[in-house]
């Protein structure tokens, strides 16, 4: 499991540790894990861990994609529909046959990159407002997904679904390993010039431009990165569910935004990071399953989940405001 404190200890501390409300995020993590351990039978068994990590991973991947876009000063309201579109393309192409996996995965990834490119061109080159541009493109992506797979269906090779739920060395679920890889991928972004430029563009666009940072390219690439992570999240969802669905990932857009806010990323850009956002994704998924395990009536579930999420976001916000010295 990744913790924000692990991030803030390294040489990148000035980049990450500063505004990240480590305390708030950690408190929420401990609280939700503790509540889950009480309410969810067998939470700490290999089976329990596997199913929880399996549910967390897709959300965490989308959130990392959204974090990159938001850090760069943008927002991607189409990211959930990119998840859907690339997953239906993948599931249609693979058609249950393991030997078609490379082709299907490659095509799915390409769809994610392409969708990100469309968003990036609209925002960075045509200079449309990110909220409007990606809201509009979300309908295009969702519509395409419906054309490609009108009803739920399609088959994922059992090799994938079984592999996704494997447990290595009796204790380590495969999705947990993948989550670790996700975090390492984020560290690679941070260690790259692109990551530095994303923070600069989102933190102070004028300063970045005057410092010869290629602002347009950075912004464009941030959306491409968002689309790429969305495609990867689509694969994780397919592996978890075993079949396709034309609405599979649509709800992930707002989930990803909520998760990154809980994880301490500033919505106006330039501050935060994926470490906290991944924890935010864990917290959100656990809250959703907690409501289920607490036997809240089906009709009231959305209401209760929403209320808990608001409290979580408020807690993160309050603790962040405390930790920050008010300037004159």
């Amino acid at each position: 499991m990744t913790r924000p404190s692990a991030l803030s200890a390294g040489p990148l501390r000035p980049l990450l540790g500063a505004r990240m409300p480590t305390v708030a995020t950690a408190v929420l993590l401990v609280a939700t894990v503790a509540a889950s351990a009480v309410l969810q039978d067998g939470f700490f068994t290999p089976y329990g861990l596997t199913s929880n990590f399996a549910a967390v991973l897709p959300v965490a991947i989308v959130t990392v994609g959204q974090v990159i876009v938001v850090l760069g000063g943008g927002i991607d309201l189409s990211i959930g529909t990119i998840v859907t579109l690339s997953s239906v393309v993948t599931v249609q192409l693979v058609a249950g046959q393991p030997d078609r996996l490379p082709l299907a995965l490659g095509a799915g990834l390409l769809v994610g990159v392409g969708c990100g490119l469309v968003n990036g061109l609209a925002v960075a080159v045509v200079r449309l407002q990110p909220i409007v541009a990606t809201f509009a493109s979300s309908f295009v992506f969702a519509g395409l997904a419906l054309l490609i797979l009108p009803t739920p269906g399609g088959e994922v090779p059992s090799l994938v679904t079984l592999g996704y739920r494997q447990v290595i060395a009796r204790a380590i679920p495969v999705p947990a390993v993948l989550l670790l890889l996700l975090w390492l991928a984020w560290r690679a972004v941070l260690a790259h010039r692109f990551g530095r430029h994303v923070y600069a563009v989102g933190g102070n666009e004028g300063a970045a431009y005057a410092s010869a940072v290629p602002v347009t390219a950075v912004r464009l690439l941030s959306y491409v990165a968002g689309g790429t992570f969305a495609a990867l999240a689509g694969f994780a969802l397919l592996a978890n569910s075993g079949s396709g669905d034309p609405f599979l990932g649509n709800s992930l857009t707002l989930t990803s935004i909520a998760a990154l806010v809980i994880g301490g990323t500033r919505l106006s850009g330039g501050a935060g990071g994926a470490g906290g956002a991944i924890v935010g994704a864990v917290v959100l998924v656990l809250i959703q399953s907690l409501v289920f395990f607490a036997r809240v009536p089906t009709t009231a579930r959305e209401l209760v989940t929403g209320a808990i999420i608001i409290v979580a976001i408020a807690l993160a916000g309050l603790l962040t405001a405390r930790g920050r010295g008010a300037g004159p």
Partner: protein
Amino acid sequence: MTPFLEMRGVHKRYGGVVAADGADFSAERGEVHALLGPNGSGKSTLLKVLTGVVAPDAARVAIDGRPLSVRGPRDALRAGVAAVYQELSLVDELSVLDNLVLGVEPARRLGFLDRGRARAAARPALDRFAEAFGGRPPAEAPVRDLAPGERQLVEICKALVREPSILVLDEATASLRSGQVEVLLSVVRELADRGVLVVFTSHRLAEVQRISQRATIMRGGRTVATVPIPQTDEGELVRLMVGELAAPKREDRRGGPAERQVRLKVSNLAADRVHDVSFSVRAGEVLGVGGLQGQGQSELLATLFGVLRRRNGTVRVDGADVHASSPAQAVAAGFAYVPGNRATEGLLLRRPLVENLALPSLGRRSRLRLPLSRARELASAREAAVRVNARYGSLDEPAGSLSGGNQQKAVVGKWLPGRPRIVLMDDPLKGIDVGAKAELFDLVRGLAADGAAVVLSSSDDRELTEVCDRVLVMFEGRVTGELSGPELTEDALLASALQVHGNGP
């Protein structure tokens, strides 16, 4: 012989405002060349055309005889031009080191950052300025944690890391203390000796005279003259800059308000970086707050205005206890606040001037829950603009289209309709040219003459001696000295600020 840098026929309009109207500029390698001119004379525009930040409507630029097409800062950087801007180009969330190499990050294969080489590249500049930082520069600290003067130093180091052949310093000394300025000036001399062309703008003419060999003077978007500095005295420079306007006179207006009533009485005030501060200001008095930079002056004013939380002490306005815990409460108690950073705290740069001027008094006029009256809003905004003598195209233009000095006048003007009893000003004259400064001086004195008590902090000792009746000297959050009357001189202020420094921890 063609000059090393040559700019010809630089034209630039912003909406209806002509910023550069065929300006020319040329300078030689190894020269420190001052660029002077009042507000809106086109200096900044000319420099931004050179550095690629602003695209001119027309211009011919050549370096070393080679025509240069600058489409953005990247092209300028490639041509060897680096700049220190008046409005800082730092990213708050990134560390000092990351800011120093921003845009030119040393990288290994595939673009992965090489922090070792980044440190090595930043080291010489940071070491050179170590003395100005007052010790080891905090390379890993986020820029957001630095004091304004330190940020300015980082900005300068950032330009040096780019190893320019043309270095542009646009008001680089505005927020520096004299010791820091000395370090900068000696670095400038070294660079010039090594053949770098340094283009230097400053409103402190004394610095210009010490450091430059030649000066080009601009007015109204055009180049007026290029003069050799040693042969041109300060008065002549001012005359060239302001044209028909008279140079500001140092008037002796001290003494007088001693018999008037105490308007503001502060006792044992404590807050973040403010310790046990007591003073009182009479109606009609201008009280200065000086000392080395970042000794709690800004925090003191922000605490009085309810921006920072007060931990202890009392504040009395006309004898009545005031405990303002928000700016709205402070305004209700008669305070007005002119912040040092007009762009972030003083004005809504994108909104029309009329809205800015009317904003603080909105509450006053909408008390009856009637919709705002556009006519009354315009009338009161126009009156305020006239009183502060702000020059603008139209009240409907965004405040950001005004030049720096006129923006600052607008920040003062917006408080006038509310008739403030106490005006707090946090370094309001920073980076403002001579002509506008004189007008703002008059404005400050005018506020005092109308019965307001003015508390003004400044990083420029000369300003304090010119405009204040009395000056408090702060050190590490405490008031450690007070000067007034004949004792109030630049020398005495500096001595008072430094003597404390000597005795300090």
